[in-house]
């Protein structure tokens, strides 16, 4: 019903060509209508993010454990001091950064190869789209279990299939030490999210003009030169958007670690540490400090990527 009102009310304002002296009146009405239409969405988005974030900022200044709620006392910035001097915090941050960098880099390569195939292919387009969307749609917890079982010592197939590799034997215990466990976690993360990367890159690839490629070919450019001098520079915006989204997503990794190792073998991520402090140990004060730090890190990361690669999201959307 409300959609109907919107359609009907906005119709007179539609043709922008008819700009006459009445424009100020009409644009004021349009301004009001526009703001009213976005208001519900803005309220819902802020309700669950802005208010709890302010709450977290406030709680982070207290010593506050849910198990002893009466023992709540103001401690200033000492929670931040505790966190920043703890080696576990830095270990977990390092893990998170490693996972982020490795998965995004690998996904970029595999995703680009997938996008190339999907762009070129003339048969079975529906089949390939369906196949690639299954990992995208599957529940991360399911992906984590599938890979945990695949790497499992007793029931997995990885050891059996790959024991011809020098560093894998039938009794390789993937979850018994740090790096193999990190590897298994990253495999699940990469499997689940490569399709997203591939689809964003595919969209970018379809924007590269065929004429330009043809011209480069006529001028005698090799395949490699065409890739680096024509294709990649022309899909820069798409690559950057994909990297931005995936990097921030990978930085928040939680589900895979929770299911596959529960943080054992020092495989905790920043998100997992924050969760453990708040939900399992009820350390709301300390946990809030971790939440604030996590939030600031993501913000910094987003700013860095946007700055470093000069991502212009508006331009990528074709708005500028």
């Amino acid at each position, binding site marked *: 019903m409300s959609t109907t009102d*919107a*359609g*009907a009310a*906005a119709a007179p304002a*539609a*043709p922008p060509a008819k700009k006459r002296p009445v424009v100020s009146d009409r644009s004021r009405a*349009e301004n009001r209508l*526009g*703001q009213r*239409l*976005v208001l519900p*969405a803005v309220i*819902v*988005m802020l309700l*669950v993010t802005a208010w*709890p*974030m302010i*709450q*977290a900022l406030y*709680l982070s200044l207290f010593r506050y454990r849910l198990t002893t709620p009466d023992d709540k006392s103001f401690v200033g910035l000492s929670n931040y001091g505790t966190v920043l001097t703890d080696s576990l915090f830095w270990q977990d941050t390092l893990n998170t950064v490693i996972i982020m960098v490795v998965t995004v880099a690998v996904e970029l390569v595999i995703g680009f190869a997938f996008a190339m*195939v999907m762009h070129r292919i003339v048969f079975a387009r*529906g089949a*390939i*789209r*369906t196949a*690639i*969307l*299954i*990992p995208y749609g*599957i*529940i*991360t917890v399911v992906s984590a*279990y*599938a890979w945990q*079982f695949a790497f499992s*010592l*007793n*029931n997995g*197939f990885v*050891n*059996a299939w790959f024991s011809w590799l020098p560093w894998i034997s*039938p009794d390789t215990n993937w979850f018994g030490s740090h790096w193999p466990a990190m590897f298994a976690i990253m495999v699940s993360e990469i*499997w689940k999210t490569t399709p997203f990367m591939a*689809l964003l890159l*595919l*969209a970018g690839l379809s924007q590269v003009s065929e004429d330009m490629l043809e011209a480069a070919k006529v001028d005698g450019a090799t395949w490699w030169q065409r890739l680096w001098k024509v294709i990649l520079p022309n899909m820069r915006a798409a690559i950057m958007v*994909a990297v931005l*989204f995936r990097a921030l997503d990978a930085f928040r990794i*939680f*589900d895979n670690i*929770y*299911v596959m190792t529960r943080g054992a073998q020092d495989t905790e991520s920043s*998100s997992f540490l924050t*969760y453990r402090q708040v*939900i399992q140990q009820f350390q709301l004060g300390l946990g*809030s400090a971790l*939440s*604030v730090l996590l939030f600031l890190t*993501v913000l910094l990361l987003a700013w860095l990527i946007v700055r470093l690669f000069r991502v212009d999201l508006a331009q*990528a959307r074709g708005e500028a």
Partner: protein
Amino acid sequence: MATTSRATRNVVGTWVGFVIILVWCLLPVVWILSLSFKGSGETAAGSPHFLPQDWTLQNYRDILGIGSVTPGQETTNNDFLDALRNSFGIAIIATLLSVVFATLAAYAIARLEFKGKRLVLSLALAIAMFPVVALVGPLFDLWRTLHLFNTWPGLIIPYMSFTLPLAIWTLSAFFREIPWEMEQAAQVDGATSWQAFRKVIVPLAAPGVFTAAILTFFFAWNEFVLAISLTSTTDSRTVPAQLSFFVGPDPFNPPYGLLATASVVVTVPIIIIVLLFQRKIVAGLTSGAVKG
């Protein structure tokens, strides 16, 4: 001659790529499917075989509570079916509400000039990148005060907040492509404004709204952090959370078959949606980030 061999090489290359993509994407799915048919005896003894040595449907009977359930597994299937019900209910309600709000907002963003438009888009983007875990503590506290802890609305509300950005971005990109002049054209031809809206605009906008709904549903169906933090019983626990609590009697030997079976059951809706709507999903995913 040279061109023919290059063409053949291209065709062969594409075929190889096609097969690699299929294997890569489907291998883990086939793996859990195979695991779901292995009996508990086989997995307890340990079996490195990819396919079951003895095919059995017992896991499905235990998970879905059909036929003769293995003694001791009654609660497993009750809990799982409750979680399935919660997942469907919460994901569908969150999707409907989120899409309605997003449609209003995206319409305004695509068609109207108003102050704060860029601000709304930036806010949506910021929330899309928000670390959900950072909210868990304060939200846990707040939800207990408001009696929203361990309830459906307690999950529906945050799911709406976190799916709105994607829905707004997808829909506003989509709405920008709609030839809105056709509405006037219909009115000139004698249609009332309601008829023009219903017969012209709704059919044009529906595919975009539908695509946004699918992406929103996927998010809500998949969400895990909030699902384990803001629930405590099967009154509101969703499938991803319930799966992570599925430990079985022996913590050192997880119930592989049951977990795989439950995984297969919750993947079926995803596969059906993907099979039916793959083209729309791809269009939606790519239009939100990069205009194709």
